[in-house]
C-alpha cells in the first residue's frame, strides 16, 4: 500500500467503532470482542478522520488547537499505524 499523503482523506472503517468512553476518560476503538484505548493525541487525530477532511486539513486543524507543537510527522506515523490496524481507510 502507498504511504499516506497530504491529500488522502481518512475515514473510520465501518467495521470499527470509535467513541468517547467516560469510564476510561479517553477515546477508544472498538471491534469484535476488543478495545484499544487511545492517548489524548490519537483521539484528537481520529476524531478528525471524518471521511471529508484531507490529512493536510487535519494537520492544519490540529495546529490551531496545539499552536506551538511540531506534530506533522507524528500525525503521519499514527495514521499509518491506524490504517495498518484497519481502524481507518484512506481515499
Amino acid at each position, binding site marked *: 500500500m502507498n504511504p499516506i499523503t497530504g491529500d488522502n482523506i481518512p475515514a473510520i472503517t465501518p467495521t470499527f467503532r470509535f467513541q468517547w468512553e467516560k469510564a476510561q476518560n479517553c477515546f477508544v476503538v472498538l471491534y469484535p470482542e476488543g478495545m484499544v484505548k487511545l492517548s489524548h493525541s490519537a483521539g484528537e487525530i481520529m476524531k478528525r478522520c471524518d471521511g471529508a477532511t484531507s490529512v493536510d486539513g487535519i494537520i492544519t486543524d490540529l495546529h490551531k488547537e496545539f499552536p506551538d*507543537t511540531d506534530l506533522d510527522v507524528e500525525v503521519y506515523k499514527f495514521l499509518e499505524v491506524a490504517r495498518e490496524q484497519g481502524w481507518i481507510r484512506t481515499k
Partner: protein
Amino acid sequence: MSKSTNSWRWPVNKAGSEQSKLPQPLWLLAELTYACPLQCPYCSNPLDFAKYKKELATDDWIRVMREAREMGATQLGFSGGEPLVRTDLEELIAEARQLGFYTNLITSGVGMDEKRIKAFKDAGLDHIQVSFQASSEELNNFIAGTDAFQHKLEMARLVKKYGYPMVLCFVLHRRNEDQIRDILELAITLEADYVELATTQYYGWAYHNREQLIPTREQLLHAEQVAKEYQEKMKGKMRIFYVIPDYFENRPKRCMDGWGHVFLTITPDGTALPCHAARQLPGLEFPNVKNHNIEWIWNDSPDFNKFRGLDWMKEPCRSCPEKEKDLGGCRCQAYMLTGDARNADPVCDKSPHHHELVATIDRVGKLAGTPEFEAKPILFRNPKNSKKITSDKETLPA
C-alpha cells in the same frame, strides 16, 4: 480548553498502562438462555443447566446492562445457550446500543434468517460471531446434533451481506482437529474477517466428554503448523486466532485475566459469575442480580473478592516468582483436577498434580484411534442428559 490540560503526546498508548483504582467489568457476557437447538458435547454451560428454568425478564436485562455500563462495561456479548431463542433480542440489542455498548452476538445461526439479521442491524448490532462445528457437513451435523450446516453457510453469507464484521468460530477437538486446513479454506470462502480456532476448554460438558475430545500431540503439532501457515498467508486480510490448549502447556493461562478483573457473566437466571464456569465451585453462593445491583456485586460481594489479588494463594503459587503473570491459572480447573480451588492450576508443572494431567494426555494419545476407545459414546448436551446427570449425582452418597 487550556493548553496545560491539552498536551500533545505520542498517540498510541501502551495497553493497560493506566491502572484505575478498582478493576472495571469491561466485558459483560449476557447468557440470555440455556435453551439451544444444538447439542454440542463441549458446551460450556453447566451439566445441570436443565434445573434452571426461570429466565430473567427483559426489564431485568435492561437494568443489568445499564448498571454494568455505568461501571465502565464496554463490550457486551449476547450468548447462551442460543441467544436467538429470546424473542426480545432485538429490543435488548437496541437498548444496549443506545447505552453505548459494542454489541456482540455469539450464535450458532440456528433461529436466524435474513429478516432478523436486518432487524438486528437496524437495532444497532455491531458484530455477529457464527460458530461452526466442523468444515464438513457430516461431522458438523453429528457434533451439533442437528442438520445445521447448510443453514450456517447461508447465515455466514448474510452476515457479510449486511456489513457486519464476521468472526467464525470453530471449536477444535480430536474429532475435527485434522480438518484444520479445510476449516481455514472454508473461512476464506466465507470471507471471514476473524477466525477463532477455539481450543476445547475442559469445563462443563467438555470435561465430562474429555476422553472423547482431547486431541493427540501429533494432531496439535499439525494444527499449529497449518494455523501459522495461514496466519502468514492471510496477513492483513483475515485474522486467525489460534491458542495451544492449556492441557498441553507447562504454565497455566492467566484465566479471565484475573478473577473479578474485567469479566462479568450473568447467567439466564440472573446469577452473577466472574467467569461462565465458576458456578460449579463449592462454598460459593454467587449473588443474583434480582437481589443486588451490579456495583455491589462487582465491588463488594464476597464471592467476587474471593480470588482477587494474590492473598488467597497457597504453595507453590504463594512463593512463585511468576505468580503475578499467570495468577495461579484457573480456579475452576484447580478445583476440578485437584479438589481445591485454591491450589495451583495443575497445568503448571510446579503443581504436585501436574503429572496426573500429563498421564491423561499420554493415555489418550496412546488409545486414540483404537476402535474400542473411540467407540465410547459422547454425551450430548441436551435437557434429557442434563436431567439424567443431575439425578445420578444426587443419588450418589455424599
